[in-house]
């Protein structure tokens, strides 16, 4: 399952036309302890680059931009009671939401894992 990253530190796993979105481990390490995650509702349409989710940490509230557009199919309900999953499992169990991609070509502008690692190393 291919995984793509954005310059704003979101990741998206793509399986057919369904994408799973989260923030990168680097992003959670910069934000510090996550205290609350505001998630989009199933059925909501998001455009690429929309602030579809907000992550609150002890330091700041940060918009999470949609890596690609589409219809939200599911939000990660586990984060409601355990927002710390974004800290402990940023790139697995701490996923934020799933979307049905409206235009998979939008993924072309994103980075693969190697490119993202190089990008973070340069920050």
């Amino acid at each position, binding site marked *: 399952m291919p995984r793509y990253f954005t310059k704003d530190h979101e990741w998206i796993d793509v399986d057919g036309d369904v994408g799973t979105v989260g923030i990168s481990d680097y992003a959670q390490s910069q934000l510090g*302890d996550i*205290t*609350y995650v505001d998630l989009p509702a199933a059925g909501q349409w998001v455009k690429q680059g929309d602030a579809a989710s907000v992550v*609150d940490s002890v*330091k*700041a509230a940060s918009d999470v931009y949609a890596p690609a557009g589409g219809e939200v199919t599911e939000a990660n309900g586990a984060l409601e009671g355990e927002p710390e999953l974004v800290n402990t499992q940023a790139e697995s169990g701490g996923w934020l939401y799933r979307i049905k991609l409206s235009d998979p070509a939008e993924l072309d502008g994103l980075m693969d894992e190697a490119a993202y690692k190089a990008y973070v190393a340069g920050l």
Partner: protein
Amino acid sequence: MSAVNAVGWRPEMGPAQHPEHESSPHLTASGDKGLMLEEPLIFELGRPGSTGVDIDAVDRAVSPALARFRRKAQAALPGLTEPEAVRHYTRLSRQNYAIDLGPFPLGSCTMKHNPRLNEKVARIAGFADLHPLAPQQTARGAYEVINQLAEWLITLTGMHGVAMSPKAGAHGELCGVLCIKAALEARGEDRKVMLVPESAHGTNPATAAFAGFSIENIPATAEGRVDLAALKARLGPDVAGVMITNPNTCGLFEREMKAICDAVHDAGGYVYCDGANFNAIVGKVRPGDLGVDAMHINLHKTFSTPHGGGGPGSGPVVLSEALSPFGPLPYTARMADGVVHLVEEEDAATMGHSQSFGRMAAFNGQMGMFTRALAYILSHGADGLRQVAEDAVLNANYVLRSLEGVLEAPFGKTGPCMHEALFSDENFPEGFSTLDVAKGLIDEGFHPMTVYFPLVVHGAMLIEPTETESKAGLDRFIASMRSLAARAKNADPSLKTAPHFAPRHRLDETQAARKPVLSWQGG
């Protein structure tokens, strides 16, 4: 009294059972340490039925219409006598920190001294006891004060009009943005986008969103200012305006403000300037000359009225000629009879103000802040206000240059700062961050600086000393900061658990945010 304190210890347990016995062998039976007081919650004090006032027993039948509101159980009110209640709050106030106790270096907050002359003037009975519904002819003096202050604000900013009623900074922002919205509607245009630079105050995007605009970010340049080219590239017929903080939250003056305003106007938009940092430029720069269309002025910052729990805010908004017709009602104006009147809805048409977008508040603003702000302005005079800005900027640069050797100053190399000095925790060892310095400052007896804001800097520490502090006071603060920076750099483990000398030590802020306990949990 034997309330459980934060570490689970009660006085009757005796010193030996105190969890901190090893580190602090001189515990007292009361829990107090000399004049450092240990105070339980109010619900842990007193006895049920104890009260400072006598309330008559209800001997009449309650109206049947109200019967369903009859309380089913006792109200769980604390039972305290008057001296117990007074002592409780006075003891708590002893654990507080205030500008009257020491420097309050919160960046972008302008926590300056509140002169006692202001307080004397504000307590003059004719101002202090005036009812907001008093007939106009009995309130002439108050209207004269409001109008004089309004004229000063217009003069100092080089603007055309002012709305005095907004109650605080963000309320003033909303007032200014609603003026922009009304002006666009009057032109028959439906512009939906408000541009907000990364370096703006956080309230700016919130205000624009509340007023119905969608927000788009404008990036900052490497030297911490608005990227003019990026701004110009985004301007167009869908852009209502731009909200800019100047000086910005990196403590830098937006040197291209005039070019920014011209570009926005050429594209048919308006410029809102966040005036929270006006203290740095009062008497030196008039925002009206730069092309600003609306700007709020925090009287509780630049004009020394109390702030941060000490009093209500007040956020008058100065307006350009283009936006003034849309400003809110009521407002003060000197009419043909030579007397200052309050212009309400019924007079708006004859005063040529029928395009007003409406009201921001029931009455005409924070009278107690107007008297204080005018007292401050008149006691300083125009030259004194100019010196306020000069001294505030000088103090901030003294802090910047005194600390840039021990703390990373991201914009220190590009020139002087304005009213606030910005540092980052970029060069701290693994595990140490801005939060540790902030907590260490509490031990040093200072209120911490603004932390983790602005977001464009890693682990931001934003220090605004204001003109209030003397060089000796600044030197004491700088010595503490240098010591804390050295402790962080040496990875001093005791800094990770600071504060050690505050009534409570390092609190679990993460847990407090994740699982907040917001009410008394019984006892």
